């Protein structure tokens, strides 16, 4: 048992941070660095790699659709064996994104209305048909989404087919495995967004002076910041474990670990980002300041595949099943 990041994982964080900080490269740079579809390429601990990249991109508030187009869709394509489409996606030539139910709680049902997640620059949406096969659908117009760093697009119930070879049917296990990977990566996105919000706010209260002293010298302020930092550190431990479990444990265990981390990160991230708003004061709720942009991103990531309450319900169903039924 060794829960430390490896040297390679640390190096990957640096690569992702460099790409995130260089706004000129965007999707081409991500694909060129081999970060699109990374979880399926990277072999052992592939989801850890994808999660660390998602965390860094979220930290920099980079408007690239990494979770949806860089992780989720490639994971579906890898599971279905759609090698041609997957290669095109990994090389940055084709951009596919998942279609969710309108409440974002789960993948859309084929033939029902949906919302494409992380759809910036997407060529088509992916839905799972009744026979388990992937189907590419044309996307409708963008919603007026709360998160300004990511694009949502409507998918009508009668969305037109986009003719793409998308491999064979996904098994139930494929779907659970994909769900575990995506939940872990969403947890990382939440964590990266919230960590940066808190770091900025802590830097602010170190400098901001009132009553002749830095406001960060007041215990009331310190304890708000500390509480948020503690939640985030615990959530980070959960996220690392879930990302590791997503490829290394059975589907059932991987999903439980992923739900645990998504719940922990959803709670911690909203709390930390709200704390950051409090520490900055009124400016954080205006267009003069980015704090509310981070909060908006967190609110969306919480909702995708279910917020902490949804995870608690699913966890209870799994762990508290009557003896013998499990």
């Amino acid at each position: 048992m060794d829960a430390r990041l490896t040297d390679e994982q640390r190096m990957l964080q640096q690569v992702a941070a460099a790409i995130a900080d260089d706004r000129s490269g965007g999707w081409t740079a991500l694909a060129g660095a081999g970060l699109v579809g990374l979880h399926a390429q990277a072999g052992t601990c592939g989801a850890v790699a994808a999660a660390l990249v998602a965390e860094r991109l979220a930290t920099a508030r980079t408007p690239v659709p990494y979770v949806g187009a860089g992780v989720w869709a490639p994971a579906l394509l890898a599971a279905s064996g759609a090698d041609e489409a997957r290669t095109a996606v990994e090389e940055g030539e084709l951009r596919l994104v998942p279609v969710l139910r309108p409440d974002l709680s789960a993948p859309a049902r084929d033939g029902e209305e949906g919302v494409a997640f992380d759809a910036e620059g997407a060529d088509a949406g992916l839905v799972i048909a009744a026979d388990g096969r992937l189907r590419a659908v044309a996307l409708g117009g963008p919603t007026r989404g709360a998160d300004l760093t990511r694009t949502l697009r409507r998918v009508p119930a009668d969305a037109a087919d986009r003719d793409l070879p998308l491999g064979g049917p996904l098994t139930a296990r494929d779907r659970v495995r994909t769900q575990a990977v995506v939940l872990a990566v969403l947890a990382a996105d939440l964590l990266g967004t919230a960590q940066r919000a808190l770091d900025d706010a802590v830097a602010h209260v170190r400098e901001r002076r009132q009553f002749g002293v830095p406001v960060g010298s007041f215990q009331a302020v310190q304890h708000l910041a500390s509480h948020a930092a503690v939640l985030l550190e615990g959530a980070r431990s959960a996220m690392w474990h879930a990302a590791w479990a997503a490829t290394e444990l059975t589907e059932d265990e991987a999903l439980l670990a992923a739900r645990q981390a998504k719940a922990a990160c959803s709670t911690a991230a909203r709390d930390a980002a709200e704390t950051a708003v409090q520490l900055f004061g009124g400016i954080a709720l205006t267009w003069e300041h980015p704090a509310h942009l981070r909060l908006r991103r967190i609110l969306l990531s919480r909702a995708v595949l279910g917020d902490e309450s949804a995870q608690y319900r699913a966890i209870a169903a799994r762990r508290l099943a009557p003896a013998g039924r499990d």
Partner: protein
Amino acid sequence: MDFRDTPEEAAFREELRAWLAAHAPAGPPADPDERAAFLHGWHRALASAGYTGLAFPAEYGGRGLAPTYEAILNDELGAGGHPPPPAIGHITNAVRIFGTAAQKSRHLPVMLACTERWCQGFSEPEAGSDLAAVRTRATREGDAYTVVGHKIWTSEALWSHWCLLLCRTEPGREAHRGLSMLLVPLDTPGVECRPIVTASGTREFAEVFFDGARVPAAHLLGEPGQGWEIAMRLLGYERGPADIGWVARLSRMLTLLENDIRDGSVAAGPSAREAVARAWVSLRTLQLHVRRTLSARLDGSLPGPEGSVDKLLLTEADQLLNHVVMDVRGAAALVEEDAALDAYFWSRAQSVFGGTRQIQHDIVARRVLGLPDGRASR
């Protein structure tokens, strides 16, 4: 990164499970004094089977294993619903790090065997959160110190053989710079323990009075004036939830509640089930964080101020879990007072002992987040 057991860890886990299946005791007795004696017996049994001092060198009675084995021990005890391991990680590590060769070989084997029990004499009536205000004085006279003072909240003092005493030895040196650490046999003439009965009826706490007790100078731990450094190092371990068995204690409580819900002996509707899952998420976060903390020690590094993060996560998990247990189990513990109420009171103490929640937040804010110390500027 690999959260999986190594083959050696898996073998250890199997061996531990087999041992527990054969040796685990029935539930603890209700009477607080009988419960203490029961736990001491359990700790000696664990020790004689080799389940204490896992990361300690074999020459001191340990197993010489990696720190991560402490997580396995805590997980297995907790998941099996067994009583927790002895809370000795903090005191044993203080002696390991600061003791002389003679002190280590005298004390560590019997500490790890749980045949000699220790308490820590830190808090005083006028030195609680402000620990550096300790007044208990030890005056060097020839080959011995003469100790005069009054300690309070000394856990396990009534049942201990030795006290790790934080005391003032260096006249003229202020606050924390004037403190040293003495190893004091509690049967020394001039030492008296008086129990403080807790809200749940245990005599775990005591006041310890020192009235001219003479302690050989050879019982000084570390250098004169090094007491504060030793205390801080020790607290780094005491705040580690696996070092003192808290993870095992909490997972046992959750395991027992979940078992009762699964077999239907406790009725739990949707909101109760959601609350139980929330408590599990919190406790699981703590367990995973502890694995990360213990992994960070694999290269030999010692606990730092980040230990306060662990203590605060522990406090959150403990207090949430106990609310959930009390709420889901309903009025039973109020109609016939039982162990659930005891555990609930302990969860409230969690944010007081070992440094209050507020002290832990002070440490995180100043030493981890780098915020300025307001006490200095005002």
